[in-house]
């Protein structure tokens, strides 16, 4: 932990800008996942003439600057998703080359992820925390004369994005049970949401944790070359679960939209012991149908609690 003045911070950033590709995402609307898991990427190129198969080269080392605490948490969680059951080659070759720098005014006890976190204390001072060895090395290399210091007192800023959902996420097990119950126990809600949702997929694209993808092959017009790509897909889109013969396993928006919740709060919990959501607020902000998942989840949990009480009373 170090205390640095704005001039030192600028010096560090200038040095990093020289040494790495520097991506400032502090005012980006899109989730940081796109830097490790781009919207569309070529995975293989196949040349017809010699039958060779190649993978495009990985990117240069880069700095991802300006991540919020929730985005850092999302990346930590996505790292885990992309490791199970085996490491995802394309994700991790980018991830390994990235230095993650969080920037926040919020207080935190345990850093949720990243390599370095810069917390502002006042107009001229920031707290510089190295989270990983990689972060520590980068700081020592570019600001060699910095002295370690005790944690200074700062007045933390409050994050007012989705505070209620943030609270709900503390009890991932309750969310899991309530969402699973709601499919049969609160049918009315899913009927209503399936009429409201446009099935556009935006909520999944802007979510820092959604990671559905599709493979897409194409042949160059000349016929000399074929490429295999992977691109973001969305479980709310119409053909997501359609079989080759035409049968659709999730034919309606009701199943598809519920599946989005089911994955995040039920299957995600069963696989990783947590909800696949960090309450970043993007899906709420960007849904053209103005569906607010925070309100939906509060509604589900309250309906579930009432029904659980009712069941207890009549037992």
């Amino acid at each position, binding site marked *: 932990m170090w205390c640095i003045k704005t001039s030192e911070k600028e010096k560090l950033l200038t040095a990093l800008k020289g040494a790495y590709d520097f991506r400032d995402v502090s005012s980006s609307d899109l989730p940081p996942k796109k830097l490790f898991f781009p919207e569309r990427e070529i995975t293989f190129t196949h040349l017809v003439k010699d*039958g060779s198969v190649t*993978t495009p080269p990985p990117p240069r080392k880069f700095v991802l600057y300006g991540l919020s605490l929730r985005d850092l948490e999302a990346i930590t969680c996505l790292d885990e998703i992309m490791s199970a059951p085996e490491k995802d*080659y394309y994700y991790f070759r980018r991830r390994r080359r990235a230095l993650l720098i969080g920037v926040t005014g919020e207080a935190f006890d345990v850093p949720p992820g990243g390599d370095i976190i810069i917390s502002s204390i006042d107009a001229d001072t920031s707290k510089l925390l190295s989270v990983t060895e990689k972060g520590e090395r980068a700081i020592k290399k570019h600001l060699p004369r910095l002295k370690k210091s005790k944690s200074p007192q700062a007045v933390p800023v409050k994050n007012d994005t989705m505070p209620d959902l943030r609270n709900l996420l503390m009890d991932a097990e309750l969310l899991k049970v309530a969402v699973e119950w709601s499919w049969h126990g609160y049918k009315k809600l899913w009927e209503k949401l399936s009429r409201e949702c446009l099935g556009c997929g935006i909520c999944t694209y802007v979510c820092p944790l959604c990671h559905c*993808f*599709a493979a897409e092959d194409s042949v160059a017009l000349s016929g000399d070359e074929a490429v*295999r790509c992977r691109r973001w*897909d969305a479980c709310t889109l119409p053909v997501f679960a359609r079989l*080759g013969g035409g049968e659709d396993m999730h034919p309606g928006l009701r*199943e598809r939209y519920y599946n989005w919740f*089911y994955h995040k709060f039920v299957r995600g919990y069963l696989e990783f012991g947590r909800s696949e959501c960090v309450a970043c607020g993007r899906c709420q902000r960007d849904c053209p149908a103005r569906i607010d998942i925070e309100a939906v989840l509060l509604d589900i949990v309250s309906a579930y609690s009432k029904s659980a009480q009712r069941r207890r009373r009549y037992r």
Partner: protein
Amino acid sequence: MKNIYEPVTAEIVKVERQSKDVLLFRLRSKGGVPFGTPKRGMHFTPGQFMLAGVWGYGEAPFGIASDPYETEYIELVVRRVGDVTGAMHLLEKGDTMTLRGPYGNGYPLEFFKGSDVILITGGSGIPPIASLIRYIIHNRKDFGMVHLVYGAKTSAGLLMKREISKWKRKIDVTLTVDGPECDWKGKCGFVSDCLTDIKVNPANTVVAMCGPGPMVDSIEQLVNPMGISDRKIFISMERRMQCGVGRCQHCVTGRKYVCTDGPVFNLDEIDRNWD
């Protein structure tokens, strides 16, 4: 870091027409590398699948139809229904395909041992069952009565007929077509109609199925009246697949991934799924 999406190249050493829209491909991996690491002499477990593909057209999952003890090649039986399978149907002997796998769990062979086995399938659901039959015949004394019930709309839609006539020496076989046909010596009617003729001891019988959606839907009505519990009925499920490794989310059903937890599930597990 290993690239888990990178396929191997396999050469087509034989193409055999099975019906109007179904071809059998025998594939040998280029350079002679066998498919999968053998476990107890088997290169895969019957019921497992491969992701086979054609560069430029994509990959799709196919149950392996050949003998799991065969080390030289594998066989896939491919029905033409869309882009990937359409591209495969243009391939000839000497051409190549891409292969990844084997993936999935396969049928629970150890659980089957010592039991009577009823195998039920329809149309192009025969490949994984074919592989299972080959396994059973290889280990014939480990199993009791074995009965295959295989149906199709018409006799032209019944696949692997030559193999089936060989299997008849080792297991019971009932073939059925939906409607009456000239010169047809098998049964007429749905697979379900034929099941009533099979006398089994439900306490010691397991069922393995693979079939088109509607047939799978009627399974409970088919087999439960015989007194066989849901936990002894194993079905290979079909879902859309892209990655094969439990990540892309296309194949999910309820709590499970068909690609990694399946494709074979018992009926009790399937009944618990919300979708």
